Each structure stands twice: as structure tokens, then as C-alpha cells.
């Protein structure tokens, strides 16, 4: 269940980023980029994120997960292809492959609500 460790990293990072947005700011949504090799189960990740976010500024935020396909290149013949069934041997020459994408495990972006629900009071703060 590495999802819990990852969810805690996400929440820590959200808290860190939100310190630059003032005390009222909350995360509205959080977007992750996860490579196909990472064995991250989206449902488990969402459940863990929900739990890890309790009592933090990420509480209640929506979690979006962008899946990144596994793309590899043969070290011998240079052939590139997207791996559907995981296998790391070149179908053309049986050479060893290099992974070009599919190992991503990134917090890509955070949608931040600055917490100023009154436009006039916010513009005063900004000024």
C-alpha cells in the first residue's frame, strides 16, 4: 500500500505550496502524474489522499490522476514504442530497452482557492 506514503507526500507538498498563499488559502484540486510502471491504484490513491488530507489545507480537495503511458526505446536498434503488455525486450531485435516514460510520480499542479470570498475585501488586501 505505497499509496498512503505517496498521499502523505502529496499533502505535505500541498501544505508547503499553500504557505505562499496566506492563511485562508485551501487546495480545491490536486493533479498527479503517474506513470504506468508505478503500480498506483487510482481508487486506493484517492482513498488515502482523502484520509491523509484530513485536518490539512488539502482536506476535501479533488484528486485528479493523469496516467502516463510506458514508452520505451530499444538500446540496439533505436526503435521506440508504447508498451501495452509490460515487456522490456525489443520485438524487432530482442535488444534491451530504455524507459523513456512511465516512471513518473509527480505532483503536477494544485488549484488554490485563496479564501477571499468577498471581492472588495480581497482587492483591499491586494492593494
Amino acid at each position, binding site marked *: 500500500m505505497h499509496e498512503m506514503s505517496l498521499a502523505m507526500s502529496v499533502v505535505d507538498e500541498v501544505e508547503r505550496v499553500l504557505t505562499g498563499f496566506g492563511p485562508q488559502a485551501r487546495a480545491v484540486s490536486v493533479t498527479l502524474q503517474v506513470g504506468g510502471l508505478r503500480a498506483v491504484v487510482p481508487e486506493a490513491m484517492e482513498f488515502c489522499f482523502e484520509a491523509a488530507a484530513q485536518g490539512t489545507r488539502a482536506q476535501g480537495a479533488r484528486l485528479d490522476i493523469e496516467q502516463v503511458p510506458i514508452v520505451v526505446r530499444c538500446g540496439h536498434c533505436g526503435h521506440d514504442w508504447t508498451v501495452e503488455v*509490460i515487456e522490456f525486450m525489443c520485438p524487432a531485435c530482442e535488444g534491451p530497452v530504455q524507459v523513456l516514460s512511465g516512471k513518473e510520480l509527480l505532483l503536477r499542479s494544485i488549484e488554490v*482557492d485563496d479564501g477571499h470570498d468577498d471581492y472588495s475585501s480581497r482587492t483591499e488586501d491586494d492593494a
Partner: protein
Amino acid sequence: MMPNDRATLLPPAPPPASLRHHRGRGPHEHNDAGFSDPRPLPSGGARTTSVEVRTNLLAANDRYAEVIRARLREHGVFTANLMSSPGAGKTALLEATLARLSGKLRVGIIEGDIETTADTDRLAPYGVPVVQINTGPFGGDCHLAAPLVAGALDKLDLGALDALIVENVGNLVCPAEFDIGEDRKVVLLSVTEGEDKPLKYPLMFHEARLALVTKIDLLPYLDVDLDLIRANIARINPQIPVFPVSARNGEGLDVWLDWLLQEVRTKRGWHTDPPPSA
């Protein structure tokens, strides 16, 4: 992230998991337009901003792993991270290894388990330093993360070691994700687990630099095809050596021990054989 942060983050009972597109409400009520529009809104709407972050979620772990790697490099300690599913024979391999390396190599062990000191107790007769990590108090992590291993290193006299072997928590998935500062990841697959496991758990076999097929003394009693195990490992990682071993009857252990000794020689810069006596 530190594993012991968990106690403060987890509520006693997790909320229901029916939340795939759950959209949380903050302290204020918003209309939907207020969530997606980055520009200032008329009175009553909140402002939202999308922030590009692009943080590696394993960055905190990886920073600890680099500190561990530097410490091990400073002392010239070769480190192997043994990983497998539970019951594949990691501890039995360690017992057989320590029995044969006594007086030849100064080995330290870090034992990772969710609970119990059973493995440390099994290794006690071999008279080598063993540090037990239990992840249970840290939320029962199913893998060793670098901060825990860094803490365990403090309990070892690295200057008195040639090699460190870390027995990870039994699990074919998560340990592959977490760099613990090792030189080599070693995966064990027992013949009773079936030929398909490299294909089902590809990241583990992709990250490993050596595969040991264990319990080969059981082959006469099983319908398992050792050549197919080799072929499936090669489909995931064509470059790694595959050594069939039996800790029970000693078959194949010399090949594994030669590999280990060669890695230690390389790390310590030894050019002589045998290495200095322990």
C-alpha cells in the same frame, strides 16, 4: 515525508471511499464557476489559481537515500537490498550466507518487518550486527523507506563492515519504489510462486540488478518450469543475471556468494583474493 507524520494526519476512522470525483467544500460555499476561473470574480466569488508544481513525490525519500549512499560510500560498505514476496526465503538465504561468509567478510544486516523480531532472532546465532526495523509503529508500512533505514544505520558501526544486507519487508510491489541508498537491488522469487510473477510485478524485476530463484530443492515436487521463470524475468529485464539457489541444500549458493564478494571487492577497491580477514 517522514513516516511518523502519519499519526497526526490519519483520523481514527477513515472516511468512506466513494470519492472519485468528490469536490470538497472549504469554509465557504462557492458556485462551480468560482472554482475554475483564475481571474478575479464579482463580489461573492472566490479566486482560484492553478499552480504548476511538478514535484517528484519520492523526492523526500530520495534525499534521505542520497545521504545514506554518501555515508556508505565514505565507509566503502557494499549494500544490497533484498526484496521478495513474503516467504520467498530471504531470511533463509541470509542464514546460509552468513554461515558461509563467517571469517571471510564483515557483514551487517538490517531487518525490515511490519511486526516481530523473529528474523533478527533467527540471525542471532551468526554473531553479526543486526538492526531490526519494525514499520508497525509507523503505520505498518509495507516497505522500507529511506528515513527508517537512515535511523537504522546510526546503530551500526559502518567502519567495521564490508557489506550491509537489508532484508526489506516481504512485498513484490512497494519496496521497488523506494530507494534506500543501496548499491544493488536483489529480487528473490521462490519456485513455488509460479512462473508468471515477473510479468505480474514488473517494476520489481525491472529495478533489480540480480534475481535469485530460490527453493530449487523443491523443483522435483512441482510442475514449475525454471526455464520459463528465466524467460519471463528476461522479458522484463534482459540484462540481469538469474541464479537458481537453494538455501536448504546449498545448491547454487557459491554463485550468489561469488557475486556478493565481487561486488564488495569492487566497492572496497580490493584487488586481492581472498579479501582481508574479518
